């Protein structure tokens, strides 16, 4: 590094050290302690002030080094190489997803597999599906939605309420198939709420749109919390668990379970987890197929055109109102189905599962994925959800920092640091090119620098 490029970070680090020293002085420099004779002993701890200042100096320098390393030419080349290898990866990734449970069972055995199939596989795939739904709204249409999880809540409560109230009342013999019957209704109701949200926000752009969607998400959650007669508030509802096309996995009654019928001997939860995995994989792939297909249809091109330039769209006779509403509705319907699946998987439902943090996570997945790319979103979900789950497995840090160190408490902190570093390295997400929806001679990817982000 040239001396000039070194001077600025060192100066910044010195300033940071001075500020920390000044702040530390009144707080830690003197410590009053009761002495042996009953009086107070004043202990001077100037070394602690110096240590704090030194720590600040080192941290600021390290951050500067990290930023410069991440934005160096080599890192940019690496980023470009990653982007280029991502596109052909999807077929391989698909095969990996299909064989994942088999491989896990083969590797860690039946009982060890539950954690890997359920906590990792199913959990990640729920977020993949939510991400693919939201990427229609944010990635394609360029409408910033901070309350997306509300649609999952609508879907989850639609399923649960229909399954515990309506189906037993009108057709009790259909109860074992409740999930499959309610799934379309969950999608439909979520889409309806997508349109209801869409109407008031149509005239809003950018930050204002984001704030209203945020408020909408909170409103849905608060209604679910406070409408206790229907939703039972925080105490929650017991959602019927998923069945194998009518055959239950666990039973309290006399009917035979999945394991009985097929003569299987393992704990029933592992079969259920594997079945759940394939159900959400199918739902997610259906989402991907439809989203991909829509992108190549006039409606998808209209969404992208809306993200690029709304005024030009109007000048070409595009009805921007229905175009925006269709993006909200279709994105929301996928969110609703993911929500219904979530309820059927948990077997229990309360509004705590649909807090703002969840909307933020899904949005982060879409942003991290980049360019409305399906592969990018899937990888981002694996990174983010898999990453936070993997960070639960950092017990070994105890051997580094001593037994009093509680590593899981640093989980989200480490994760946040990782996110910041990642966004410095790849500001437009994992996938940095846009695939055209139609081509004449050859499909040439469009560079991110030309693609607009929308949000209006």
């Amino acid at each position, binding site marked *: 590094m040239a001396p000039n490029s070194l001077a600025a970070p060192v100066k910044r680090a010195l300033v940071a050290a001075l500020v920390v020293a000044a702040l530390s002085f009144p707080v830690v420099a003197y410590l009053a302690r009761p002495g042996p004779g009953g009086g107070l002993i004043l202990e001077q701890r100037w070394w602690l002030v110096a240590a704090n200042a030194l720590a600040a100096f080192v941290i600021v320098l390290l951050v500067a080094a990290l930023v410069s390393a991440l934005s160096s030419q080599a890192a940019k080349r690496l980023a470009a190489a990653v982007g280029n290898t991502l596109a052909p990866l999807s077929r391989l990734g698909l095969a990996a997803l299909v064989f994942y449970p088999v491989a896990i069972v083969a590797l860690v055995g039946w009982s060890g597999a539950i954690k890997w199939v359920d906590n990792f596989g199913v959990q990640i795939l729920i977020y993949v599906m939510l991400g693919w739904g939201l990427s229609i709204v944010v990635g394609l249409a360029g409408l910033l939605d901070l309350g997306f999880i509300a649609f999952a809540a609508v879907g989850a409560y639609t399923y649960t309420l229909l399954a515990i109230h309506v189906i037993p009342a009108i057709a009790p013999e259909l109860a074992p198939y409740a999930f499959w019957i309610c799934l379309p209704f969950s999608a439909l109701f979520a889409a309806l709420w997508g349109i209801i949200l869409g109407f008031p926000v149509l005239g809003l752009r950018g930050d204002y749109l984001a704030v209203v969607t945020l408020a909408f998400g909170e409103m849905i959650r608060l209604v679910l919390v406070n409408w206790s007669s229907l939703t039972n508030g925080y105490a929650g509802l017991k959602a019927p668990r998923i069945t194998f096309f009518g055959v239950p996995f666990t039973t309290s009654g006399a009917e035979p379970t999945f394991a009985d019928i097929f003569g299987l001997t393992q704990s029933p939860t592992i079969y259920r987890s594997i079945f759940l995995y394939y159900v959400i994989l199918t739902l997610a792939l259906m989402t991907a197929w439809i989203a991909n297909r829509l992108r190549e249809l006039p409606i998808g091109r209209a969404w992208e*055109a809306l993200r690029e330039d709304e005024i030009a769209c109007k*000048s*070409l*006779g595009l009805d921007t109102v229905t175009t925006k509403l269709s993006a909200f509705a279709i994105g929301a319907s996928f969110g609703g189905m993911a929500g219904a699946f979530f309820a059927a998987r948990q077997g229990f439902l309360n509004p705590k599962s649909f807090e703002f943090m969840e909307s933020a996570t899904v949005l982060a997945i879409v942003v991290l994925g980049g360019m409305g790319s399906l592969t990018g979103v899937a990888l981002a979900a694996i990174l983010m959800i898999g990453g936070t789950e993997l960070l639960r497995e950092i017990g070994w840090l105890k051997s580094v920092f001593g037994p009093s160190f509680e590593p899981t408490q640093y989980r989200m902190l480490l994760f946040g640091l990782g996110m910041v570093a990642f966004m410095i390295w790849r500001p437009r997400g994992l996938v940095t090119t846009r695939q055209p*929806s139609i081509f004449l001679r050859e499909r040439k990817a*469009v560079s991110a620098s030309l693609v607009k982000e929308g949000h209006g």
Partner: protein
Amino acid sequence: MERWQSAPLLEVEHLAMRFGGLSAVENVSFKVGAGDITALIGPNGAGKTTVFNCITGFYRPSAGRILLASPGRPQLNLAKMPDFKIARDGKVARTFQNIRLFSGMTVLENLMVAQHTALMKASGYSILGLLGAPSFKTAERAALAKAVAWLDRINLTARADDPAGDLPYGDQRRLEIARAMCTEPILLCLDEPAAGLNARESADLNALLRDIRDHQSTAILLIEHDMSVVMEISDHVIVLENGRRISDGTANFVKNDPNVIKAYLGVEHDTSVGNGNGVAGGAVP
């Protein structure tokens, strides 16, 4: 009789547009003839773009009527229609002073978006399209053929799969016109199409506009500062100053009109300045 009198396509009547206390356009009336190239000129701040935005629905006029009549269609009052309906149902297309292409989409995609209304119907509002219905495939092929035909006309076929934002400036201008033409308009409104073009690109543009007038049933209304373009291709010129119409007629009539010379040069008409090419030669703002 001139065509804008005998066969008017667009009649602007007593148009006014006020922004708060500021009156940008006051009591402007003019007619645009079917099949004509009509130029709207005037010094900076004359209200040309305001008139344009009223015609294309981006502004709602404070007063006046904008009547669009074409054979076999009921007359429409554009002053009462929202912007996208003027484009979709009125068949009035426009371009923008600062080019508004979908820069992150390819050249071909830009032309496909322009055919959205027809394609959306053909795709059965996406349902037939999702199922891959043959009727939609046929419609899509037809749309593609139309896009390619326009690409051939503006010499951009070789760049069909490149992002629109990557094109040179002159190509972007022509692409924006081709995109507007893909909506099959009966009236094409161009806001300073020659701005920033060099002499050759400007000549190409003139050829393209004449070609559109002669081979398409599309009338052209354009705002332009480049008098060589205006005088060369216009059948009809309307001059605005300070939000009012000060002259209206053929290119030859307008460039000898004392009012116009006064507006551009700020002096009383003088034979030594006027005489045929006063405006065309010296008065490019």
